[in-house]
């Protein structure tokens, strides 16, 4: 879909890292024996239609990156569309026709701005509770994602409406706050009822920033997600272990596009027309060359630096405030990565993603629920904060947390409970000047 476009060539080969380096040096987690080199990964997003890579690319790599960028932006079309060839295969059931429709300009999904139909970037993933275990088995009638669109001859699975209640409170200085508490209305269920034990998981499309670098973080620091054998670096709950798996899942479940890795659409036995059309389509629908190009694009796409470079300087003491609140316990300023290809002669590098890539209990307020209404204890991968400054400068329908309920960074912090309760309590004790100072620091990431 449409989004901001610019006319300037945004291809910047090498990260511009000075600001991040200064901040990271200030607030490296205590005791972390990290490389003292400047963090890698960021580059100015000069043109939102032409995202940069985080490292210099060879001409062949640049061509692959550009092709992947094109695949990312391309709306796929149903089988049988005349001449569509490489972009054929959408559906039968789907949520969006292009990656870019949800991960707009690679930055973030456009979140819900109020009551009404769920925006395209918010999908309802479906998982199954078996006893106390949450399994990635999907709903028997609806599969792994509730698909709100379909090709001709197939009926979409349902419509999703969001309604918000509110949760009120105030800071220690008396300033009131109000949080949006979402409820989800699933209407027009066309293939029978959902199973009472199905877990409804509203999830907004996250930014793509620095995915390849997150994948390069060594794995042992992961905890296994509740109820899942997977323990990955990706997804709101770390359920995808690799960019490949996350991408092919999204193709299959949200776009109805088969790949060499996931050669099946997400049709269920209840969905006869879906199954028939899917069986008649050639497999894979996403040509291998295009899949590899998209993966390369996702691997190399950079983290945006503040623009213009160096213009956003966090106020003195703001980084220390972030640390003093305890945010660094999870939003770690630096992680070590091991690159496949050396950068400036070294495979071992440092990134500044402001995440530990671990799963944490953030309290019952964020729990998913089953169809029967049972809260399901949920743990969340610490959301990377790098690129937050860029997102805050492009605030169209900008929302936060896994379902986009938070309308501001402030609200997102206030939803932190569970393991983050002490940090939240410390934040509530800040006065308005201190809160603004913290926001300025976050805006510099």
């Amino acid at each position, binding site marked *: 879909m449409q989004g901001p476009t610019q006319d300037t060539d945004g291809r910047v080969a090498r990260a511009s890292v000075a600001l991040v380096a200064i901040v990271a040096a200030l607030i490296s987690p205590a005791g972390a024996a990290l490389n003292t080199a400047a963090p890698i990964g960021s580059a100015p997003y000069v043109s939102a239609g032409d995202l940069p890579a985080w490292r210099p690319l060879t001409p062949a790599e640049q061509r692959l990156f550009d092709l992947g960028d094109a695949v990312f932006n391309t709306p796929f079309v149903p089988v049988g569309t005349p001449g569509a060839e490489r972009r054929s295969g959408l559906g039968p059931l789907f949520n969006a026709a292009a990656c870019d429709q949800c991960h707009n300009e690679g930055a973030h999904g456009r979140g819900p701005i109020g009551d009404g139909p769920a925006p395209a970037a918010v999908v309802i993933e479906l998982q199954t509770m078996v006893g106390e275990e949450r399994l990635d088995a999907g709903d028997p009638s609806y599969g792994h994602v509730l698909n709100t669109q379909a090709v001709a001859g197939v*009926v979409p699975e349902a419509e999703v409406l969001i309604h918000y209640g509110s949760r009120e409170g105030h800071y220690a200085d008396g300033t009131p706050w109000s949080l949006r508490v979402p409820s989800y209305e699933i209407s027009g269920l066309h293939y029978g009822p959902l199973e009472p034990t199905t877990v409804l998981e509203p999830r907004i499309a996250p930014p793509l920033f620095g995915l390849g670098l997150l994948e390069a973080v060594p794995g042992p620091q992961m905890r296994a997600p509740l109820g899942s054998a997977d323990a990955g670096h990706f997804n709101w709950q770390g359920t995808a272990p690799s960019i490949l798996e996350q991408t092919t899942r999204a193709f299959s479940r949200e776009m109805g596009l088969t790949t060499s890795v996931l050669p099946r659409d997400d049709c269920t036995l209840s969905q006869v027309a879906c199954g028939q059309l899917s069986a008649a389509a050639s497999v894979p629908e996403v040509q291998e060359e295009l899949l590899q190009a998209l993966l390369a694009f996702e691997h190399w796409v950079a983290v945006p630096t503040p623009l213009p470079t160096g213009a956003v300087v966090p106020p003195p003491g703001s980084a220390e405030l972030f640390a003093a609140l305890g945010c660094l316990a999870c939003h770690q300023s630096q992680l070590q990565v091991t690159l496949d290809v050396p950068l400036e002669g070294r495979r071992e590098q440092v990134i500044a993603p402001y995440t530990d890539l671990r799963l944490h209990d953030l309290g019952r307020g964020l729990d998913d629920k089953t169809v029967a209404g049972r809260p399901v204890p949920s743990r969340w991968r610490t959301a990377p904060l790098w690129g937050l400054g860029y997102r805050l400068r492009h605030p169209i329908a900008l929302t936060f947390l896994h379902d986009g309920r938070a309308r501001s960074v402030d609200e997102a912090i206030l939803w932190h409970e569970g393991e983050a309760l002490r940090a939240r309590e410390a934040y509530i004790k800040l006065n308005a000047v201190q809160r603004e100072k913290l926001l300025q620091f976050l805006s510099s990431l």
Partner: protein
Amino acid sequence: MGSRGRLVVGALMLFLGSAAIQAADAAGGCQFAWDVSHEQALFNGAVKTVAAGHAMSAAPQLVPDQLYELALAPQEQVTFAVAPGKKMLSDGAYAGVAHVHIAQAGTYRVSLSAPFWVDLASGDKLIVSGDFTGSPHCDTPRKIVQFVLPAGEFALQLSGATSAQVRVTVTSAPTSNAGTNAGH
């Protein structure tokens, strides 16, 4: 139509039956993030059919507040004033260009009956769009892109289309964009 139902999870409630069908139908209609009543009125009015240009030198002039049905050409036959703002695969795609004159600076909308890519260019520069909205179950219109424009001449470029025709309007935007989640 099979069984249809409505389910509310949060403060959880479950409804089944006719009320649910009505709710589903209402949600499935034309819903946009903004007030698009002017654009919808135009899309339900008289239409003027013209051939889009293969190049700006042969492009038609479009007038604001008029609904056009543009006949497009295979994209490989079209020469754009400026390369489209996003890289995309163009297999089987249609495209076309047109002139638009904007008499007074302001915020304008380009509305399309299908979710194709649209750019506005001034000289050799693309105009950065401000925002967009869309309604996937609707074609009157389907997609609307908003631009802040100075007065002047612009190239309207359509690309990546999956059909050889598209209906288009150019309109001045109302002062407020208040609306719903739809289209985001």
